[in-house]
């Protein structure tokens, strides 16, 4: 067992954990923040995406004890049913989900993607590596490709993110 302390959605948590506990299981099983989903537990689906120190990561492929002092934002930290984050509201409006299981990961990823574009991080489909990055539809779809939606809501998710990006641009 090892002690670790980190911030989740603005609250500091001190935990004593089996070193084997992933950040994902720490959130779901210890803090009961079950909005973050376990789809594959192997970094192959993106359902577990959370934002750590401003960057989106797969919480299934990182140990909780490696996050001493980190600031973690989960889906619960973005908004709640009675006060939705704009990205959450856009997903509802555009029906950017079906079964809902990949949805928190999609939304966390989408929020982080807009930040990545703002910070000028290029992607596989960025035509000119030395020019400023623009959020085209192709950019958005490439950047979101680490979040699998088996229900196939991709087209609607793209519409939802596009709307939020347009509003914030």
């Amino acid at each position, binding site marked *: 067992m090892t002690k670790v302390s980190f911030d989740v959605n603005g609250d500091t948590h001190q935990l004593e954990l089996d070193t084997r506990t992933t950040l994902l299981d720490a959130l779901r099983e210890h803090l009961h923040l079950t909005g973050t989903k376990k789809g594959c537990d192997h970094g192959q689906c993106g359902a577990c995406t959370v934002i750590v120190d401003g960057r989106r990561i797969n919480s299934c492929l990182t140990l909780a004890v*490696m996050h001493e002092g980190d600031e973690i934002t989960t889906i619960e930290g973005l908004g709640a049913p009675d006060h939705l984050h704009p990205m959450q509201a856009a997903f509802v409006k555009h029906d950017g989900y079906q079964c809902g299981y990949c949805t928190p990961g999609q939304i966390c990823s989408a929020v*982080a993607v807009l930040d990545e574009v703002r910070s*000028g*991080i*290029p992607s*596989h489909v960025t035509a000119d590596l030395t020019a400023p990055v623009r959020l085209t539809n192709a950019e958005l779809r490439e950047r979101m490709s680490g979040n699998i939606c088996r229900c196939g809501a991709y087209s609607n998710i793209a519409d939802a993110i596009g709307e939020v990006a347009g509003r914030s641009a």
Partner: protein
Amino acid sequence: MRAFSYTRAQSPAEAASAAAHTDNAKFIAGGTNLLDLMKLEIETPAHLIDVNGLALDRIEETPDGGLRIGALVRNTDLAANERVRRDYAVLSRALLAGASGQLRNKATTAGNLLQRTRCPYFYDTNLPCNKRKPGSGCAAIGGASRQHAVVGVSEACIATHPSDMAVAMRALDATVETVRPDGAARTIPIAELHRLPGDSPEIETTLQPGELITAVTLPKPVGGTQAYRKVRDRASYAFALVSVAAIVQPDGTGRVALGGVAHKPWRVEAAEAELPRGAKAVTARLFADAKPTQDNAFKLPLAERTLAAVLREARG
């Protein structure tokens, strides 16, 4: 996942020493491959040394105008680095072609080099695999081998190295800097870092037990048109069937390294002399000793055609 003890390293030398002197210890940085494998008990360390605090996360210019990339620089940051985008575009492109945004945010430069094969037989602990369990046999030979290596293979293993980044670094003649358990530093040309499987596919690199990669250096920019073309069934978030890293100079000379075809980034310097004669001539040399399976023989024409496309584009 077996139980393990966990410590945070204080310095590279101390980390290397601890790794060499602790039974069954491993470094952990990004963890994106190691934890994946630990969950399946393909990797079973008894002790993890967390190297994330080692301040090896800087990208600095070297005195000769090259770049020194800290071992812990995340793939995202390396791909987004302005110098890399401008002067080593093939590296930026290769990184961005790999994995997903989430994984690139965690995965490190050293960890990317040291990631292990995605051969499905390596990943299924019920089946024979010489890499996972030396002497048990290779289930991929005679099995499903569409993804597997076509060149540099052995009777013991036909796995590929899955990295995109390493292919670009091979084309760039990168050098790996390490610190050994005795505290001594050494440098290894990237060509010599990864091994072919031979009869010991479980030994994948020339690193010594406990040796820690601290940085990767790139020589001063070589210019030219740089491209990384990754071919896969799925448009993103998939490993390469074949990839081509190419640096093509205005005079038609250049460098070519292939991914997805061998146990290491595949570059044959002698083949590059054929570049002015075109892709067919180059791949004929690159694949002189190819031994594809029925499942993956398509990789030979695919690599040739992909290289042809890259060269055509590079030459405008």
